[in-house]
Every structure is written in C-alpha cells, then in structure tokens.
C-alpha cells in the first residue's frame, strides 16, 4: 500500500516537450511509473521517445484521458499557463493533479482550488516536488535513488529538505511508504492534515515524518489533528528558526507575519501534541527508529 500514487497510477505529463518536462518524464518512466501520455498543444500525434518506452503525445488532457486512460497528471508548464493546465486536467477528469510549477500567482490559486474541488479531484502543490511511492510510482521531481520501500510516510512543505531527510532514512535502512511534498505556496491543494489522514488510513504506514516551515498555521492545525485523530507516531521538523520576520524566505508561503507563523510557535505546537521534534535534520533517524 501507499497513498495518492501506486501501481494503478496512469500518468500524463503536461508540458512533456519542455526541458524539465522531458527530463522528468524520462526519469519517472525509468523509475517504473506507468507513463501513459504526454500533452503539448500543437504536438498531438507525435511520440515522446526520451524514456525506455515510447509515449503518445496529445494536444489536450481530455484526449489523454479518453485515449490513454490517464488518471493522474503532473504539470511542468510555465507559471503563466500553469493555473489553466491544472483546471484543464480537472475538467478532463484526472483524479490526482500534481503541480510542480513554481511562481503561480496566488490569486490564480484562489480560483483554481474551488474549480478542482468541484470536480472531485485532488491537487498536490503547486510549487511542490510531487509524490514518490518507493517501488511503485514516482510523480514529480523527487530523485528516485534516495528512497527505499518501508514503513514511514513523509510529508513536507519543502522540496530538497525532504530529500535530505528521506535520504538520511534510506541510508539508515529505514524505508518509506510514500513521500509527499505538499508545496511551499500560501495556497496549496493538499495540506498536512489531508496527507496525515491518508497516512493514518494506510495500513502499511507505521510512522510519519512531517516537515514544516515558518509561515501560516498549517503545522499548528496538523499538530492538533495528530492528537485528535491519529494513532500513529509522528516525528516533526520545522525549518526557519533563524529566519528574520517579514521577509519571504524563498517560498511565497514562508514568511513570518508579525508574531505569527514562527518556528518556535510551530515547534511548541508539535511538542504540545506529542510530536517528537528534531533539532537538526540528522536527528530524524534516531527519532523515527524509536517511534517505530
């Protein structure tokens, strides 16, 4: 078992002929993901051949769903077209939409989110590294070589920081059910609670690593959720203890407003709700080991 993506995932890559899209389409296919289609308007009828198996390219996601049976989409198109690409996927009936693109205007997301919700689809991201279920499927940009199968669910607002922690686990012989990057933007489709819920319901996940950062109150709410709804142990990390207030730390969502959204506040919420807090990334191995 795994969450969100697994062996039933039938993936379409939106923006498959772009530099990043092509590179990661190849990587995902090499990892073993069932890549069934690519989409680039105007290139319908061509074939994507960078990966181990040829993949048909369509003009629209609707065609990719109808003709290739895609149920999951991953988006690598530039920010100005990304909101539209997400809505196109939702309208076409895609169930899981993973938006890698960074830099989508937040007001676009205020419209994209209800559009996706109305169609019963799940949006992961934007500005996220995607999802990786070791041994089953890789959707997004997480490096396949840093994961291994095992009992730990990982959920994070960050990209590379997630790799860091996952790789430490893998090197220590602790594998993962699924690694989920929920994205660093202020408005995202799937949040910590949604993901924790899925991990709680997944029988193979025995413990969860939750990686947060400054800004907002998602981590605090997730911590309360852990107490209220979760039976599985959770280990947590918060990035940005040394971040100055009022500055946007790379991620549009990583900003301390006034006295709200600080790392201290979040770490306190973790501790108050029985979540073991790492002081540094390398603590992850010991804390997870004792949680399992």
């Amino acid at each position: 078992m795994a969450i969100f993506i697994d062996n039933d995932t039938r993936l379409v890559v939106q923006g498959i002929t772009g530099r990043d899209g092509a590179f990661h389409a190849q990587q995902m296919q090499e990892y073993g993901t069932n890549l069934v289609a690519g989409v680039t308007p105007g290139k319908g009828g061509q074939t994507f051949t960078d990966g181990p198996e040829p993949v048909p390219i369509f003009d629209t996601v609707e065609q990719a769903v109808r003709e290739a049976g895609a149920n999951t989409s991953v988006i690598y198109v530039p920010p100005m077209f990304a909101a539209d690409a997400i809505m196109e996927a939702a309208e076409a009936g895609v169930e899981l939409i993973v938006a890698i693109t960074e830099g989508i205007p937040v007001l676009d997301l205020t419209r994209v989110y209800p559009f996706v919700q109305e169609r019963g689809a799940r949006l992961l991201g934007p500005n996220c590294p995607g999802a990786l279920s070791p041994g089953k499927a890789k959707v997004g940009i997480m490096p396949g070589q840093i994961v291994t199968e095992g009992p730990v669910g990982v959920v994070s607002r960050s990209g590379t920081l997630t790799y860091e922690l996952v790789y430490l686990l893998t090197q220590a012989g602790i594998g993962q059910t699924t690694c989920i990057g929920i994205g660093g933007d202020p408005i995202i489709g799937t949040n910590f609670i949604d993901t924790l819920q899925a991990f709680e319901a997944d029988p193979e996940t025995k413990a969860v690593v939750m990686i947060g950062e400054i800004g907002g109150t998602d981590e605090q709410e997730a911590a309360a959720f852990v107490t209220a709804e979760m039976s599985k142990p959770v280990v947590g990390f918060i990035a940005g203890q040394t971040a100055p207030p009022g500055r946007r730390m790379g991620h549009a969502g990583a900003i301390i407003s006034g006295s709200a959204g600080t790392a201290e506040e979040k770490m306190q919420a973790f501790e108050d709700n029985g979540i073991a807090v790492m002081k540094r990334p390398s603590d992850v191995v010991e804390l997870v080991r004792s949680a399992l």
Partner: protein
Amino acid sequence: MNIHEYQAKDIFRDCGLPVPPGEVATTPEDARRLAEQYGGTVVVKAQVHVGGRGKAGGVKLAENPGEAMEHAANILGMDIKGLTVEQVLVTPAEDIDTEAYVGVIVDRASKRPVFMVSREGGVDIEEVAARSPEAITRLAVDPRYGLLPFQAYWLAASLYDDIKQQRAAAKTMMSLYDAFIQSGASLAEINPLITTPAGEVKAIDAKMNIDDNELFRRGAIAAMRDLSAEPPSETKAREADLTYIKLDGDIGAVVNGAGLAMATMDLIKFYGGEPANFLDIGGSSSPDKVIAALEIITSDPAVKVILFNIFGGITRCDDVANGIVTALDRINFELPLVIRLTGTNEEEGVRILEQAGISASTSMDEVVQRAVVVARGE
C-alpha cells in the same frame, strides 16, 4: 513587492476610491510648490517601505508652504529603520471625525481574499486583533463571484450607522476589491478610512503589497518597483531569479530550495556559526544562476567562507558543478569553498568538480560543521 503609499493611492484613485489629491516631491522646493498649489494645511509624508513613519518623525503637518518646505527638508534624506527617505508625499490635511480600518489580504486558511474591517482605525491592526478581536469584522470573498454588493454593504454597515456613509463605504469596498484583484495584490489596506465632520468618507492612507508572481503580467505595476528601497545585492539576485536575503553573519550559503536553505541557516546556528545570508537558487537551475549567486555572496565583505548545500531534484548536480567551475574561471575570489552535492546527476556533478580540482561531500551535517570551523579561522 512593496509599493509606496503614493503609488498605492494612484492605483486606488484609478479604481474609483475616494482618495484626496496628493503628489510626490523629491526636493523641499517641490514640496513648497505643491503646498502652495493645494493651499491650506498639508501633510508631508515620508515614502519608505516600513511602518512607524509617524513615530520616526516622517509625517508632519505644515500650515503654510514655507513650513512644508522646512518639513520636506528635514524628512528627505532621513533614515527610518535603515532606509533613506528619497521622496515625500504632499497632500492636503483632512479634518477627521472618525477613523476606521479596511484591509484585504489573501488568506491561507480559507484560500480566499479576506476583508478585515474595524471601527478602530489609524492604529496597528495587529494590535487591535490581539487586544480585541471582536472589534474586527472578517469576510472571505469567493473569488468565483468577487465581492458582492450585499457583502460590501454588510462590511460597511459594521463600520458606520449612517446610510450615506454606509453606501459610500460599500462603494469603497467594491473599488478596493477591484484594485486588489487588478493589481495582483497580496495586501491592500486603507488605514485610516476617515469620515470628515461634513460626513464624507475618505481614504487618507494606502498600502499595497504585490504578489511577485503577478509581475510578469502586470508591467505597469512591475515598473513601480523602487530600486532605491532595497539593497543592490537583492536587486541583482532578483534579476538572476534567485532569492537572496542578507543577514549579519560570515558564512555565505548557496542552497537549492527554500526549506533546505532555511534548514542550512538553522544548522549553521546550531553548530555555533552565523549565516551571512539566505540564498535559494531555486528549482529549475542553470549555471548562470550559480555564477550570479557567487558574485552576490563574494561582494559581501563579511563573508569568510562559502558553503554550497545542493540536493538535486529538479536542480541537477551537473548544472551546479558547471556553474561553480565556470564562476571560478570568471570571477576572482579567494574565499574558501565548502561543497555538498547529492541527488540528481550527482556522479556527473562530482566528476566535473573533481576534474577542476574541487572536492565535494555528500553530508549536510559534515559540510555545515566544516564551514563553521573555517569561518572561525580554526
């Protein structure tokens, strides 16, 4: 991106908000001329991207043009929280009966634009929120419909009891929402929205923050950026599509990914060092970014060591390695480099560095500790 009060007021005026006239002056003589033009008492207001201008002496009443010139002379060039005042806004003084607060932000929790209004205006809204949250009326706008007239009236009716003022305020809410959406703002604020003794409703201060991600499609607003209001290193970083924030320490860090960059800063501190900056070279990478990053960091004289912490995902380690090698060729610096490189195309990256005689580690903990030691000069 922050814009100045006078720029926000221009946008507000274009959207039909009741903003009194006002123009910007860069010399005391300009300020005098404007005060003459408006007649009567004017306010001279420092235009800087920072709160608390009033307390710092950056906002002054002038009863005549001569006084306006004097105040402008004092305020122009003034340092407010590290920023030099280059411009003042000159605007007629208004008689104030009541002061209210009206603001719109993008709210993470509801995933919508949210209005916050309060009868307590002219003060810090965060203080009001902390002290008496019930004094603030909140309304989340469904972006599929926009702010609806009845919602604008609901908000207005929470501020005023008089129907004329309610109607004027409702119209102001509608216009403010237009300004917010049309500008791609993440915050738009009127503080205070006043009523005059004659019963008029006016917006006498204005604040807007623009979502940086909107600028590509809003040329007119992008052109409002005031480069004098930010350190040149941050301007350069932005132009190279990097995120750079200068800090006070001596360990310059180049990291890919915001979370990892923050964690790197935190870890430097954990091991007793002090980060000189936050620098995220972002997701999709190119060698040019690495070069720009090195140029920016090496221009900070406080930096004693440069730490690379790269975990390849969409960023490829070979790109970063190429960037480092090219940068070393192109720019001249003597600073020690501590490099960590792992993830996508790690082997190629490490090989490229080794061919150039540079060694790289794969452990974050290790490189951070080493950088702290190097910075200490041990």
